[in-house]
């Protein structure tokens, strides 16, 4: 009896699976998909929404794949999606780790699927070496924007004094780039600003909270500014300052442009953040991919700065937050490179 039940379940599963393949491979509709780490952070949640908006605008089926920080799962899901759609798919992917991008591109090339990557890829993997399936790579200049936000922090400090800096996971590319940009901006002050200490808090607000507490003991009023490599850690540091009644008296900056950071800027408690544009990276990544797949653009004929490009990171400070809040964030899906700020540079 048990055996019988087991067999019929298997049979039903096999039937479901094969019918799924059947309908998918004979459907005319191209599938649009987004792959990323997790839906539990605002950046990626908005990134997925950007993709969904584009899919709605062209009336195509849309799927979200989530790696949960696991490269193996990410790759397996993408392989399954490519197999299920017979390669008739456009994927806008934020690879879990840089090496994953190479595998994803290889899979897509083999099946005739189209891929746009975000943020993470090996430096020697280029879209123009994999025409036409590897459409483009989009990123944001970690060093450049970090330098800009650090300058905003230094301005808020009145141009001199000691800062403490909270970094991300030491081996992450954005963490490395943002730290470098911060160090360059500090070096440009010719010693007027000093980095009292740098500690990684692994993008985690609770860790940043505890480190900030220890710094208050170690440096006390020597701290004239707090630099954080992302908004979560900036908020963690801000809450540690609040506990001591110092929220607002020591400027704090973050990066990412989360709602928490934007409100803190409005409340005069943070001195700035950098707003990425995940609606744009999510939507435009798919739009570009879709354009390549449908032949609207011939990627092989496009110059390199249209294949690997930086988006626009907006430095938001108390001076421009009102404008930022009321800005027109809409964009034209067919104006592919309007928000590009140049070809990606390798350090």
């Amino acid at each position, binding site marked *: 009896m048990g055996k019988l039940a087991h067999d019929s379940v298997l049979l039903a599963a096999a039937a479901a699976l094969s019918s799924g393949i059947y309908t998918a491979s004979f459907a005319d509709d191209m599938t649009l998909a987004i792959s990323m780490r997790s*839906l539990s952070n605002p950046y990626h949640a908005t990134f997925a929404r950007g993709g969904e908006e584009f899919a709605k605008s062209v009336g195509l089926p849309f799927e979200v794949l989530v790696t949960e920080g696991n490269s193996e799962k990410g790759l397996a899901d993408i392989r399954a999606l490519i197999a299920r759609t017979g390669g008739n798919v456009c994927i806008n992917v934020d690879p879990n780790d840089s090496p994953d991008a190479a595998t994803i591109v290889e899979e897509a090339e083999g099946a005739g699927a189209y891929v746009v990557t975000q943020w993470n890829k090996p430096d020697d993997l280029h879209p123009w070496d994999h025409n036409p399936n590897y459409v483009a790579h989009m990123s944001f200049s970690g060093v450049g924007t970090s330098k800009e936000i650090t300058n905003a922090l230094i301005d808020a400090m009145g141009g001199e004094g000691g800062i403490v800096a909270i970094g991300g996971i030491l081996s992450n590319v954005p963490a490395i780039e943002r730290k470098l940009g911060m160090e360059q901006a500090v070096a440009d002050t010719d010693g007027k600003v000093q980095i009292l200490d740098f500690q990684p808090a692994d993008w985690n607000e609770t860790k940043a909270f505890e480190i900030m507490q*220890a710094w208050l003991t*170690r440096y006390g009023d020597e701290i004239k500014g707090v630099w954080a490599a992302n908004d979560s850690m900036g908020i963690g540091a801000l809450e540690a300052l609040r506990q001591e009644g110092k929220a607002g008296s020591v400027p704090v900056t973050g990066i990412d442009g989360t*709602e928490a950071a934007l409100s803190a800027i409005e409340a005069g408690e943070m001195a700035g953040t950098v707003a990425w544009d995940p609606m744009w990276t999510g939507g435009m990544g798919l739009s570009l991919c879709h354009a390549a797949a449908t032949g609207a653009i011939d990627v092989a004929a496009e110059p390199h700065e249209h294949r690997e490009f930086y988006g626009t990171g907006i430095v938001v400070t108390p001076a421009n937050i009102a404008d930022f809040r009321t800005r027109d964030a809409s964009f034209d899906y067919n104006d592919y490179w309007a928000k590009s700020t140049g070809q990606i540079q390798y350090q």
Partner: protein
Amino acid sequence: MESINWRALAPIGVFFLLCIVIAIFSPNFLSVSNAVRILNASAIPVVLVMGATFVILMGSIDLSVEGIVALCAVVTASLVLNDTFSANLGFWAIPFAVLAGGIIGAANGATHVFLKVPSFMVTLGIGFVCLGIATAALGGFPVRISDRGFRALTLGRTLGLPNGIWLAAAAVFVAYVIQERTRLGRYVYAIGTDEITARQSGVPVERTRILVFVLAGFFSGLAGVMAAAQLGQGHALIASGRLFTTITAVVVGGTALSGGVGSVLNSVVGVLIVIVLTNGMVLMGVPPFVQQGVQGFLIIVAVTLALDRRQLLVVK
């Protein structure tokens, strides 16, 4: 009952030794303001280890800590004045969040006991379910608390100490009374020491196990309330990293993972050791890439000193 030997005091010795070493390198460490900061950073972990200690004393493990804390922080943030939902329960949000923690704890306990699934797997699974619910309910965005009065729960001070420290002290008092003065507390030791004998002596093993998981859920729920008040928001990732601190503190404090040996007071010392270590590394200026190594090394030393290894028949 327990015979007092020097090893029972080992965690306290490790704690003081650590303080002396840090103070030599960084005199600021001994300042009153730093002591308050350390106690403040210890508040949430202390509440968490109160529940975890009972579970571990029983020979089980609770890996759902991060999930329950996150979900209860989200419940709290959603029920007080916030930017996402139209609720304004103020402090009345607390019983709801703590109760939610207890219900999830009951789900842990019931699944573990009735389906005979190891607590390791049950709590891991339920923890993920909680994170999933927290993520799905908010679509990945945080709920931000705009109720300033509610945030006084951790930001305000009473008799010069942040309120979070008083809450943690109250949690320790309650846990200590349960451990020492109630039948439940005694049953936990009996089950942890030898479940078969306990059962034969009439200890209601199943009921005790479920109750202990409910208790752990209550404490995790309270920790969720405190996390929400401390950071002014609730979101799915708010508790990331808490599980490691919790289990480490319980073990460093001298409670055996095999069950039966330890105390909630030991775990308080364990939390202090872990937090002082983090604080001290930054004060002493230990380079970041060395910190994790030193931390791992010192934790092993503390655990070795805290337990009489010869008394352990089985090490798993």
